[in-house]
C-alpha cells in the first residue's frame, strides 16, 4: 500500500485565528478516511488544503505526488485532474444541462472529442443512477440528485482521490441515504476517499480510518469501532455521546 496523502505538522491561520495547529495524517490508496469533529475544528479547511484551495502556512503536505506547500513548483492543474472534490452546496453549473456539466471539463481540460466525453458522462451518470436525467437542468433536480451529479462530474475526470466536504449536510434523510449509497459503491470499487462528515453511522460502518479533529489538531485517529467504543480523550467521548 502506498500513501496518496501524506501530511506532516500542518499549520494554517486565517488572520489571527489558528485553524490548523500541527496536523499530521496519512491516507493510503483505497482507504476511506472520515474526518469528524465540531464546527470550527478545522476539518473543512484541512480538506480544502488537500486540493490547493487553501494555502498552507507551514508543514509538509504531499497529495498524489504533488508538493502542495510549494505553490511555485506546484502544478495545480495536474493536481486537480487527480483530486476531485464535492461540496456541501453541490455547485453544479446552472446554465447547462446535467450532461454538459460533466462534459465541460472533459472537452475543455482533457481536450476529449465530444462523442468520447458524452460516453464518459453516460458511464458516470449510470454509476450514480441518473442516466435518464442527462438533458435536465440542475434546477429541475432534487438536492440528492444534484449532489449525485456533482459526484459524477468529479468522477468523470477519473481522479485518484475524492474529497467530500459535508456532502449530505443540506439533504433530508431520504436524499442523504441515496448519496451515501453512491459513496459506499465508490469506496467498494477501491476509490480513495477523504470525507468530512456528520453522518456518524455511515463513518462508523464504512470508514477504514476515523479521524477526530479538535482545536485544529488530529485529536484521535484509528479504526472507527475503537474510537466510538473506547474514546481515549474526554473531548471525543463527549462528542460521540452527544451524537446518540
Amino acid at each position, binding site marked *: 500500500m502506498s500513501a496518496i496523502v501524506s501530511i506532516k505538522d500542518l499549520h494554517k491561520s486565517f488572520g489571527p485565528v489558528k485553524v490548523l495547529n500541527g496536523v499530521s495524517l496519512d491516507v493510503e490508496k483505497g482507504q476511506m478516511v472520515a474526518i469528524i469533529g465540531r464546527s470550527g475544528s478545522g476539518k473543512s479547511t484541512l480538506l480544502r488544503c488537500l486540493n490547493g484551495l487553501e494555502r498552507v502556512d507551514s508543514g509538509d503536505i504531499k497529495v498524489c505526488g504533488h508538493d502542495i506547500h510549494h505553490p511555485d513548483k506546484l502544478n495545480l492543474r495536474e493536481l*486537480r485532474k487527480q483530486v476531485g472534490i464535492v461540496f456541501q452546496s453541490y455547485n453544479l453549473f446552472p*446554465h447547462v444541462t446535467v450532461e454538459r456539466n460533466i462534459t*465541460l*471539463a472533459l472537452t475543455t*481540460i482533457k481536450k476529449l472529442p465530444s462523442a468520447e466525453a458524452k460516453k464518459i458522462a453516460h458511464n458516470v451518470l449510470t454509476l450514480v443512477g441518473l442516466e435518464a436525467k442527462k438533458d435536465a*437542468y440542475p*434546477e429541475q433536480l432534487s438536492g440528492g440528485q444534484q449532489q449525485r451529479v456533482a459526484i459524477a462530474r468529479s468522477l468523470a*475526470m477519473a481522479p485518484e482521490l475524492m474529497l467530500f466536504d459535508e456532502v449530505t449536510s443540506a439533504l433530508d434523510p431520504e436524499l442523504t441515504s441515496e448519496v451515501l449509497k453512491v459513496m459506499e459503491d465508490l469506496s467498494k470499487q477501491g476509490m480513495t476517499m477523504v470525507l468530512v462528515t456528520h453522518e456518524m453511522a455511515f463513518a462508523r460502518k464504512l470508514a477504514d480510518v476515523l479521524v477526530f479533529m479538535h482545536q485544529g489538531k488530529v485529536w484521535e485517529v484509528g479504526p472507527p469501532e475503537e474510537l466510538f467504543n473506547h474514546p481515549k480523550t474526554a473531548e471525543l467521548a463527549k462528542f460521540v455521546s452527544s451524537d446518540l
Partner: protein
Amino acid sequence: MTSFSFLHVEYLLQAALWTVLLSLVAFVCGGSFGFVIALGRISRSPLLRRLASLYIQVVQGIPLLVVLFLTYFGLAIAGFKLSPLMAAGISFAVYCAAFLGEIWRGCIEAVPKTQWEASECLGFNRFEQLQKVILPQAFKIAIPPTVGFMVQIVKNTSLASVIGFLDLSRAGQIINNSTFQPFTVFGCVALIYFCICYPLSALSKHFERKLNVSNR
C-alpha cells in the same frame, strides 16, 4: 411660415437614422471597451484593477456634455479637427465604456463565488472559467441593466446636437423654428424615439424569457 408636412416627417426620419447610428457606435465601441474595463476591474493584477477603476471614476465624474465639448472643441485646439459624428461617437463610446464596464463588473461578481471554486477544482484556468462558466451566467444577469442603459443612451444622443450633430431632437428644433407647431413636431419626435426604444425593451424581455426557459 410653412406648416408641418410629410417632407418634415421625412427630414425627422433621416435625423432619426443619425440618432440610431450614434447609438450603435456608442454601444458597439463603448461596449467592447467597457467589456475590457469590466475584465480589468476583476483582474488579479492590482495595477489593472486600479487603472480600470480610475477610468470609471474619472468618466463617471464628468458630465457627458463636457465630454462632448472636450472631444469636439478641445481636441480641435490640440490640432485634431473631428467631424461632429466622429467626436460624438468617441464621446459616447468613452462614456458608455465607463458605465457598461461598471454594470458588467457587477454582473460578473453576481455569479456566486462557489461557481469559481467548483470550476477551479475541476482544473479550469481563469480564462476557461470566465469563458465557460462565469460569463454565460453573467450574461443573463446583465441583460436588463444593459438594455436599460442603452435606452438611456438612445435618448441622451440628443446632447450631441450641441456640437452640431444633426440628430432627431435637433431636427425637431429646426422644423419647429420654421413651423411654430411645437406640439405636432415634438409629438412626432417623441413618437420616433419611442419607436426606437420600445423594441429594445421588448427584445430584452424576449431574451430574458428565453434564457429563463433554458434554465428551468
